[in-house]
């Protein structure tokens, strides 16, 4: 019964978004190029770059602002409902967001109570979770300031968390060099092709590559080769992957939407 309700809601929501997108729209809903969204008279930006720092920020004429703020026509009859449905989806998503922490707390609490393997890590996780929630709850309030929560919040955010992020990303530089030494080996034709492409792109993306080939004609420079590699061979592959993945996503979405391939109870 519960699953049927979920499937029914999924179907109705999917149908709503599909119809809202497909049904003919009025003027306000028509997609248009950048020119269509801009006022007819666009100010020439020529002198703007040298404007003094103290000059007031350019203000739009009231009519122009009004025209931009009020679309002439609404879309189809479902469009007015769209913000509410969108908000509903966001709220449901926020509820789903809680499932992750709840499951993690349950698992780690169970490990801790059973005194199982990894209980130290579980204890660290729970302590950090409680500390994070407490600090964030009091941060910015008068009581929080008195309890030193603002200082603790900054220390945790900018001191601990950012240091972890920075360290983990910085380590990648060393792993990349190490991996290049061990794995980029010229063993066969495919490996050779990859090595040549990697060399061109690595040098073409930095000024050293420009400097090395600065004496050559433009089309022979690393930069041009990099551009060609990224736009054509890479672009083709990216499109192929994207089209394939999108086809799979459409199929998966249709199955979810229509409730196919899932057990009812």
């Amino acid at each position, binding site marked *: 019964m519960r699953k049927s309700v979920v499937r029914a809601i999924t179907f109705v929501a999917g149908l709503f978004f599909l119809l809202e997108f497909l049904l003919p729209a009025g003027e306000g809903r028509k*997609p*248009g190029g*950048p020119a269509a*969204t*801009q*006022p007819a008279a*666009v100010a020439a*930006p020529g002198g*703007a*770059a040298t*404007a003094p*720092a103290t000059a007031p*920020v*350019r*203000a*739009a*004429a009231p009519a122009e*602002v009004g025209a*931009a*703020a009020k*679309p002439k026509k609404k879309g189809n009859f479902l469009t007015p409902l*769209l*913000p509410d449905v*969108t908000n509903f989806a*966001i*709220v*449901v*998503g*926020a509820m789903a*967001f809680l499932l992750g922490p709840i499951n993690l707390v349950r698992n780690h609490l169970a490990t801790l109570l059973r005194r199982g393997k990894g209980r130290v890590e579980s204890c660290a996780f729970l302590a950090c979770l409680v500390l994070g929630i407490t600090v964030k709850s009091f941060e*910015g309030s008068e009581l929080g300031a008195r309890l030193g929560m603002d200082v603790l919040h900054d220390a945790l*955010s900018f001191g601990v*968390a*950012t240091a972890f992020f*920075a360290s983990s*990303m910085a380590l990648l*530089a*060393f792993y*990349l*060099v*190490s991996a*290049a*030494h061990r794995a*980029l*080996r010229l063993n066969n034709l495919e490996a050779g092709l990859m090595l040549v492409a*990697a*060399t061109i792109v*690595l*040098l073409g*993306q*930095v*000024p*050293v590559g420009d400097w090395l080939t*600065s004496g050559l004609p433009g089309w022979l420079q690393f*930069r041009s080769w990099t*551009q060609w590699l990224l*736009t054509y061979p*890479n*672009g083709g592959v*990216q499109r192929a992957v994207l089209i394939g993945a999108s086809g799979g996503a459409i199929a998966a979405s249709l199955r979810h939407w229509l409730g196919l391939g899932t057990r009812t109870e």
Partner: protein
Amino acid sequence: MRWLTKLHTLNQRWLYLATAMLLVLPLLVRVPVPSSGASGATRGLYDAIDSCPPGKVVMINSNWDMGSRAECEAQLDCVVRHLCRKRTRFVVTSVGLVFGPMFAEKVIRPIAREHGYRYGRDWVNCGYIQASGGLGVVVDGLCRDFHRVRPADANGTPIAELPLMDRVRTVRDIHMVYCVGYAPEREWISFVNGQHGTPVGFGCMSIMAPEYYTFLDSGQLCGVLVGNRGSSEYEALLGRPGLGSRLIMVASFGNCAILAAAVLGNVGMWAAERKRRQAR
């Protein structure tokens, strides 16, 4: 010849030490950046921002934190400087990244103060917007009714009280959206550009750039700043070398370290194979 074979089984610690030295060197010694002009991707973004008509607002989605700061900070810095120089107002959001607003604020506030920008009138930081309901839904919601999806700014002030937000209600009031982050999401292209026709530009890490060339080629992205290369080119267009120009030399040395490691590995492998053949 024996020492060449040692390259095959070189202790990785020597590589790590050499990499660290190579990365730190350009930070300590100022190495001049050879001028080579802006790429089409950078020029496209510059032109899109430069063509912002009076009264329109640029939206910046700043989704980066410490992990991607090395490349994204300069990308945000140069674009905000350009906007301030042009006296264009802007709205900042961080859809889906909690730390986004804090890092964005650290970059934007000094530049805004330097150019006499007043918060609320000339720029607004709308802060973190959670995207757990699906990024597409949130981006679409922002396009249709900004106030409804994000009723308060990063400090909790209702955005209806901020003068600038009076003129930012839907995506029609926005000249373009610039998303800067590790790998800006494709939903911005699908909804902002695909459905509403508003130009979208990205600033991304170098390693994620190949994903976006196809959208650049099709015109769905007006421009992309690719890592520090993009920001250094943008700074050159602004005529003001900054953080990006300094960091691109670090990237140059890093890339050279990768290539040197690959060469050493191959030379060591050939030497070891030759030795093995001779021994047979």
